[in-house]
């Protein structure tokens, strides 16, 4: 009982203090005279976010400096970056990360559009969407256990058990535990083990894109669709010509968010990929492995900078797209 009371008090106090701070700030801003009042109000609206974000900006700057130093913190020039672009293993890490960005983003966004479209107004829509959402709610620890029941080479591994059903004597496959797959070396792109982990992440991410795209779909005014249909458009045409352009912004948003989340993929590589073994490493994983266990902070930092640079074009395209959409209205 005591612990529940304590919980409620802390939650209440935390939110109250927060609301009070915002309220007082806005009240103070309103006491000023123009033109300062407008400026102060802008500051109250954006300020808290900017203050919090310094918590990300400062580490990023420290990191940039680190990337030009070696493991003894001596000046190292661009050699960390040269290392990344020449070392064979590092190139695989980079290829893996790019595949992650493309495959998972494409698969989960397309899934999201398809489910949001066909489940919309369907009987049992909430149930179907809840089922797709289910994996998103499971913690990483839980996901690890679940997929162990799928990939494990032991008797309780689903894939191997299904494989054993084929006629004849079948050799047990060690998914994620060795570099060969049905007797074939998998040095082609991407490492087949990376692909197995991608399936898990698509399984988790689809819930996110479905929920967000579905929310946008509900925002499409009925009269638009009806007008199109009255003008003789088929379902397909109404969807591709009217609905899809209307929610294009959201789809791009979802794709961007997913790409960025996936480029940072880390936890699951640590658990399912055993810290990036058997060709499963990614940039974020390498960043951690170099930075902490291998004590080579400079190289880890260089990976982080590279990750940041990879995202810049995505953000740029996104910003331009937004601007174009705003001007089109």
């Amino acid at each position: 009982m005591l612990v529940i009371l304590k919980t409620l008090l802390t939650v209440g106090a935390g939110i109250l203090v927060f609301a009070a701070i915002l309220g007082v700030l806005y009240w103070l801003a309103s006491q000023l005279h123009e033109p300062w009042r407008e400026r102060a109000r802008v500051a109250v609206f954006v300020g808290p976010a900017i203050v919090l974000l310094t918590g990300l900006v400062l580490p990023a700057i420290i990191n940039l400096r680190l990337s030009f130093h070696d493991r003894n913190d001596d000046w190292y020039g661009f050699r960390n970056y040269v290392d990344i672009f020449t070392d064979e293993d590092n190139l695989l890490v980079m290829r893996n990360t790019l595949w992650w960005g493309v495959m998972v983003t494409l698969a989960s966004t397309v899934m999201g559009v398809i489910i949001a479209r066909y489940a919309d107004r369907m009987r049992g829509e909430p149930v179907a969407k809840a089922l797709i959402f289910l994996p998103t709610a499971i913690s990483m620890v839980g996901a690890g256990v679940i997929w162990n029941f799928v990939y494990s080479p032991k008797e309780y591994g689903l894939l191997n058990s299904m494989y054993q059903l084929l006629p004849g004597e079948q050799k047990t496959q060690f998914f994620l535990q060795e570099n060969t797959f049905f007797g074939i070396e998998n040095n082609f792109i991407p490492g087949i083990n990376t692909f197995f982990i991608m399936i898990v992440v698509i399984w988790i991410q689809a819930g996110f894109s479905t929920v967000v795209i579905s929310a946008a779909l509900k925002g499409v005014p009925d009269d638009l669709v009806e007008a199109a249909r009255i003008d003789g458009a088929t379902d397909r045409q109404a969807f591709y010509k009217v609905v899809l352009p209307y929610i294009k912004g959201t789809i791009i948003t979802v794709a961007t968010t997913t790409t960025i989340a996936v480029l940072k993929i880390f936890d699951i590589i640590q658990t399912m990929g055993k810290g990036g073994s058997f060709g499963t490493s990614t940039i974020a994983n390498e960043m951690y492995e170099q930075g902490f266990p291998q004590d080579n902070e400079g190289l880890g930092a260089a990976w982080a900078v590279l990750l940041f640079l990879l995202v810049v074009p995505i953000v740029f395209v996104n910003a331009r797209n937004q601007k174009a959409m705003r001007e089109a209205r």
Partner: protein
Amino acid sequence: MTATIAPAPGHDLTPLPTKVAKKLGSPVGRAAVWMLAALWTVPTMGLLISSFRPEDDIKSTGWWTWFTEPTNVTLENYSGVLENKVNGLPFSDFFWNTVRIAIPAAVIPIVIAAFAAYAFSWMKFKGRDLIFVLIVGLMVVPLQMCLIPLLQFFGSSYFPDALEGTPTIWLAHAIFGMPIAIFLLKNFIGSLPSEVIEAARVDGASHMTIFTRIVLPLSVPALASLAIFQFLWVWNDLLVAKVFGGGAESQPMTFAMVDMVGNKGNEWQLLTAGAFVTMIVPLIVFLSLQRYFVRGLLAGSVKG
């Protein structure tokens, strides 16, 4: 709200709406949705079934063999999780710790981000677009990179060390959730019809009035979906709580779960039940927020 829709000029649509709209979508599409939903559920179902099986069965046969003898169930895994003491504390303490961390850590960043998203969409100030692009760029800064510098700041004497570090965890979550929250909300709030905002402004409404009376109510679907995910990330987090929190008495359920498995060595079968115990609240949050994904909030505000 539908009552306020002005019929588009030239068409009298009043008798048609629901009938026509319902036809969008096809039997094949619906079948595909159910098939995908079923496929998506298979791994989770395996976990659910396993969580009710005795330890020996879990570790020796596949969960699908349960169908051959469906009476062979036990609650041992669940009682194992719930009765287990972690650092001398009952499991329920950790549940409440998670609640205590998760609610403010979900609410605070969303409120701050909504304010910022409004400013980036509808307030005019120098460098607005540039700052926004930089914030989106910050989405990529990986959490692992910021842990040590932030820890040094929070650990310094300038920062109060109150309530077993819980406010520190809130702040850390707010920081890490900020870029994506601003990005998602800005995309939604920025695409609200400018006619509505302009009209309010002409009527002399202040920013705060427009924000609370117009923008927030219209953004309910976006806010609801963001709330679900921010809550989910925070609820399932282990790393941030471990790094920024105090001792075991302030730690969330995820900590208790990992600790349980670590201390008891080979008892990973408890995780099958544990995964479901931690999943219940996020599912309730999702199901209860789902009804806010409502249609037609914008109806009548724009010319069709």
